[in-house]
């Protein structure tokens, strides 16, 4: 009985480490193979190039992380009544 419990105790961390290695290998494969391949597809690579050329920071969580602060343009001042 104690042998079985001992085995279970031994198997627990080993199983956890095996799971961690499996998930890590999957993540590495996705980031090193799948995503670079996806990024080389014409539609996606065109999208990325366009955004980079425009200086867009698509991963920005808040406006302060943008490359350019969004400030109102001359067009907006000329065509919108900002304060009636």
């Amino acid at each position, binding site marked *: 009985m104690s042998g079985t419990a001992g085995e279970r105790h031994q198997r627990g961390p080993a199983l*956890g480490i095996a799971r961690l290695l499996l998930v890590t290998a999957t993540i590495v494969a996705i980031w090193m193979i799948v995503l670079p391949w996806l990024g080389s597809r014409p539609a996606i690579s065109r999208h990325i190039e366009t955004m980079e050329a425009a200086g*867009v920071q*698509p991963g920005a969580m808040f406006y302060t992380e943008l490359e350019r602060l969004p400030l109102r343009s001359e067009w907006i001042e000329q065509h919108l*009544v900002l304060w009636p």
Partner: protein
Amino acid sequence: MTKDVLLPHRHGLHEDSAAIIIGVIIVALSLVIGWNARPTADAGSREKHPKGWRNPLSATIDKPQSWSDSPARSLVVVDKKDPAKVTPVSRAILLGMAWVVGVSAVGTLLRGRSLLAVLPGACALALLGGLAYLMAAQKVINHYNLEYPLWALLVGLVIGNTVGVPKWLEPSLQGEFLIKTGLVVFGAEVLFSRLLELGLPGLLTSWVVTPIVLVTTYLFGVYWMKIPSKSLCMVIAADMSVCGVSAAIATGAACKAKKEELSLAIGLSLLFTVAMMVVMPPFIQWTGMDPIVGGAWIGGTIDATGAVVAAGEMLGRSIDDKRPAEVAATVKMIQNSMIGIIAFAVAVYWAGWVDRDAAGPKSSLAAEAWRRFPKFILGFIGTSIACSVLFTSSPELSLLIDGAISGFTSRLRGWLFCVGFVCMGLQTNFRELAPTLASGRPLVLYCLGQALNLALSLAMASLTFGWLFRKVVEP
């Protein structure tokens, strides 16, 4: 030593007080150092300093840069004009991790806990935060706006659900403290003057629609869909109606949402952000909608700021017009600036009404509400008000604030959130949410709230940007 470590608040400050002290010191430090290094010529010129004065602290912190094939590329910045010119940022990335370890260490000391027990784990967590940032910096991930909190949660979840949290790491899991400190620092970025950038049309689109959608979605989730957790409904309502992950973090902390609830809300928000970013620009173009109205609609509905700018740019490119991107980004910026007020209102509502204990002692309502009120919100609002006042005081101070934010505080806040989310992932137990998840109700709530958001934002954008405040200008 273990007993020593586990004793909570032994002769130390409360977590919220420590977060406020450290957050305020960080903001003040960046402003003082920025002021001491002010430029001698054209100090008040925004043309010369479009992102504010260069803050010397910017050299002490950075994050992994965008990479496509090799993660080694994340350690260098490539000059856009001259791709042969590369600047290494590995030292600044390591220093960024050191800042987080420093904040954890000072927080530990202020809270009267054992520093030695926390330091090794804090270093390991900072490295895991770096790994999450590295995953988020992959170009495809980055350009489809799958932000770092998602990967930080994933890193934590993978470890926590496979090998579990090692004993030596447990004392270092201070996710809530790091996020609260990050929020106090984040207050410096929430500048009230930005609210007025698009005048009345911008205010109406953001300030009328957003609170209506937030309150309606929350009430709908609690009373009609009968979702048992009010905090889950609030976090979903806030991240969907205000500005995605940052709003979820602020309101989640204000209403003391569970880690699992915040993780779920962030996951939902990011998935819908990607879908809306891809679908909305062609839809707007297909309907022949006024590009300004389309831009305002994008700004009012897509959750994440980066995705709003990307969608506005996509719309603008398709019709060769820069205006939709400008309007979209500015409307989003106004919504961003609402976070402080929304978080404060949620904290007051939660402390005064939701968390009330009917069977508790009969002290006055105000005293009870104050006891439950998350005090760190005061630090968040305080840094926001102080920086807003400084920002509007003079052109020089506005450039000082902009430089401190873009060069230092926003980067440090990012690191604090990132490592905070790794801690949350490590401690997240999705089994607790399993019944709610299996019912699919959070997803339905998000969809219904977003449908209302889309309809109301379109109506308000058409009314304000398309008709009511549009000048008749001769071509």
